[in-house]
């Protein structure tokens, strides 16, 4: 009878289904039209609304399918018919997960295909991205729908559930501020665990409703699932998360010879001139003034392989007083050390910690023991590509699709890339003139996501990444080896780095005075 029930729902809902399917294609078409550089601001603004409407459409259609034979209540005709509840559930899931999500996959596949990727890549990217959307939109929508009688009740239920999750998240963030693993490359593990909670919660709720019709218990299960979901997102222990990530290291032990030590000889850190900071860095610095003290600890790093990047996923600081009491626990700012080319010398870096002024003031002159637990990732150069600096166009399975163009103020070459699924974890790029050997400084984009390539947690099945490569200082204060006139003969060298080893190190400084390492 599954097919019979399915056909009944189809006869009643096909116009709604076609409308929602059409709506799915709108954001996909906008993304294709925006391309790599996304210069059409009207379309860019419309994309967000179109995406929201498409997601809402999927949710409402899924709800309508469930509500054709709603579970709570005592007036529904199907309750007195010889309808197997298992058949009813399977028919509903077939419609929601087969047809509705199938249409979403078709729209995403169209987008990836139209962006020039292969059919195989397109289908894989669309399928896995839709898996994420199913977990965050469709499953919660049908879980709540199975405990409500009509759309109005569902809207109320959905709002209550959403506000509950937000309230819990805010409450949990206040309990453990700044300690979210979601800001690291291991976020995919946390999110996957959260999605598993949603999946299991939905299974429990649907089971409760379709087998036992116990709406009160099912609603309770939704509440418990929400608490579990937020708990998983906020409180999965970092050590366990990182240990799991370590097990997935492509080359375990690749960083075994790498050491990290406190190097007082490097001297005190001096803040760079405001001119060299980006707008964002400048505004961050202004915001911090007065509220916290910036501590910069000089570090010496040895054993870094050639063409590698070392990135701290998390640095957990403990300040311990002379009597052995931990007087402060905090998390460090980002630490990234690059070793480009071949070099045997030691690398150095400054590790920043922002300590609240109220804590810092009484401690700054004391002699304290500092312990830092580092969770680190070593990236190795995976591949490098050269693209003409002007009008460059590169397509490759590893890099995806990249283009270059000069920006409006004619001060930088914009390199923009897209990749089906997740893009590279780390990338650097620089302008190079092969005929003169001149090379400009290379910025990096290293916001790692260690998720498998196609495990994408976003509404867009394609990831976008890019870098701006300066060749002219609009203020005339700096000069670049590769400048504007050389661009026709120059190329952008794009270097992609992949994570090789996730590992931990502990740094212990037996006694320092914080005041000595405050930035100037």
């Amino acid at each position: 009878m599954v097919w019979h029930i399915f056909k009944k729902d189809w006869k009643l809902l096909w116009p709604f289904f076609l409308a929602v399917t059409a709506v799915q294609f709108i954001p996909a078409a906008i993304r294709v039209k925006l391309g790599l550089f996304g210069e059409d601001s009207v379309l860019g603004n419309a994309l967000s609304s179109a995406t929201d409407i498409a997601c809402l459409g999927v949710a409402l259609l899924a709800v309508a399918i469930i509500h054709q034979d709603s579970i709570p209540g005592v007036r529904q005709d199907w309750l007195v018919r010889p309808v197997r509840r298992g058949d009813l559930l399977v028919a509903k899931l077939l419609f929601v997960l087969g047809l509705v999500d199938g249409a979403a996959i078709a729209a995403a596949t169209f987008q990836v295909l139209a962006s020039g990727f292969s059919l195989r890549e397109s289908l894989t990217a669309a399928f896995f991205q839709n898996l994420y959307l199913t977990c965050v939109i469709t499953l919660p929508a049908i879980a709540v729908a199975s405990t409500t009688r009509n759309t109005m009740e569902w809207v109320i239920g959905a709002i209550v559930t959403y506000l509950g999750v937000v309230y819990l998240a805010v409450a949990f963030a206040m309990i453990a501020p700044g300690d979210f693993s979601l800001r690291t490359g291991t976020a995919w593990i946390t999110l996957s665990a959260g999605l598993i909670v949603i999946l299991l919660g939905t299974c429990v709720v649907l089971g409760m409703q379709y087998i036992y019709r116990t709406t009160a218990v099912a609603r309770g299960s939704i509440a418990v699932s929400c608490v579990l979901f937020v708990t998983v997102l906020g409180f999965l222990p970092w050590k366990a998360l990182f240990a799991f990530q370590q097990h997935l290291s492509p080359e375990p032990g690749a960083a075994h010879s790498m050491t990290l030590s406190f190097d007082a000889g490097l001297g005190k850190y001096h803040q760079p001139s405001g001119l060299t900071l980006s707008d964002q860095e400048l505004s961050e610095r202004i915001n911090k003034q007065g509220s916290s003290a910036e501590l910069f600890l000089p570090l010496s790093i040895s054993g870094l392989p050639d063409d590698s990047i070392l990135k701290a996923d998390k640095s957990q600081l403990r300040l311990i007083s002379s009597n052995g009491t931990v007087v402060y626990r905090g998390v460090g700012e980002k630490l990234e050390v690059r070793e480009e080319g071949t070099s045997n010398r030691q690398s150095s870096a400054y590790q920043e910690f922002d300590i609240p002024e109220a804590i810092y003031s009484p401690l700054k002159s004391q002699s304290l023991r500092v312990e830092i637990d580092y969770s680190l990732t070593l990236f190795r150069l995976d591949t490098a590509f050269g693209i003409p600096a002007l009008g460059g166009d590169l397509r490759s399975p590893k890099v995806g699709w990249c283009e270059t163009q000069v920006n409006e103020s004619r001060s930088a070459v914009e390199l923009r890339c897209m990749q089906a699924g997740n893009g590279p974890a780390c990338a650097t790029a620089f302008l190079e003139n092969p005929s003169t050997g001149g090379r400009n400084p290379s910025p990096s984009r290293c916001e790692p996501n260690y998720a498998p390539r196609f495990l994408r947690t976003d509404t867009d099945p394609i990831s976008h990444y890019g870098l701006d490569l300066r060749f002219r200082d609009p203020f005339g204060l700096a000069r670049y080896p590769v400048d504007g006139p050389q661009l026709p003969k120059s190329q952008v060298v794009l270097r992609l780095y992949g994570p090789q080893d996730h590992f931990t190190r502990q740094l212990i400084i037996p006694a320092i005075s914080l005041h000595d390492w405050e930035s100037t």
Partner: protein
Amino acid sequence: MIQAHKLWKKFGRHDAVRDLSFAVPEGSAFALIGANGAGKTTTIKILMNILHATGGTAEVLGIDSRRLSPRELARIGYVSENQDMPPRMTVEQFVAYLRPFYPTWDAELEKSLLRQLRLPGERRIRDLSHGMRLKMALACALSFRPKLLVLDEPFSGLDPLVRDEFMEGLLHQAGEMTILISSHELGEIDGVATHVAFLDEGKLLFQESMNDVIARFREVRVTLEREPAASTHTPSDWVQLRTMGNVVSFVDTQFSKDALGERVKALLPGVRDIDTQPMGLRSIFTTLARTARESAV
């Protein structure tokens, strides 16, 4: 066919059904009678496993009502005044949707019922009148020749013409089936019910065959030579006792033609005349309901 044993249903602090036990014999047309809010619909929804009882058990077709499976439901027809059917389906679509669920569905009977009840097949359910919807529900309930037909307030809001059509359709196909019908309109079950149960505020006042009920209730009017003494004691089976001058009237709930005269004369001195009148179902129901409420106060 149906056995209810000490059924109890609470909604919050309100007892909708209290300690309800009754049995519906196979082949009977069992009427569940009671005023609005008496607990009839709640009882039926428990029997159909739509609601769960707070206490007690019920058996339908020999199965615990909480375990009614599609196998049993395929032999039960159900018509209710407040049954939500898919509003966007046409009558034909709905009937076609139901057909495969019932192994005993009789397509010829379905056609004849739709014709007899003059149901427009192409019209959407949401566009049908209340009466039309009930007739459609009846056609759907009868088309598979159910063993048990449950009718929950089927006449509510029907005009006399539609009611007659409904009854005609029902009686024409009744055959061997057992019928459980709930109603607060007593005139409507007259001539249909073979057994009756009276419910009041969730409690069962009595259940018995229709013939026995009609036989044991009489309106009695006794004319005395003089006004009776105020302290006269009367038996508990005489209810709704009224005195007006030298005339005493009451309802005898255990009427026996032979015994009444002697009992009256023993309790009321100076009897000049005794007049008994048979009672209609409506009068019996109102008398019982009133008595139950007065004794509760």
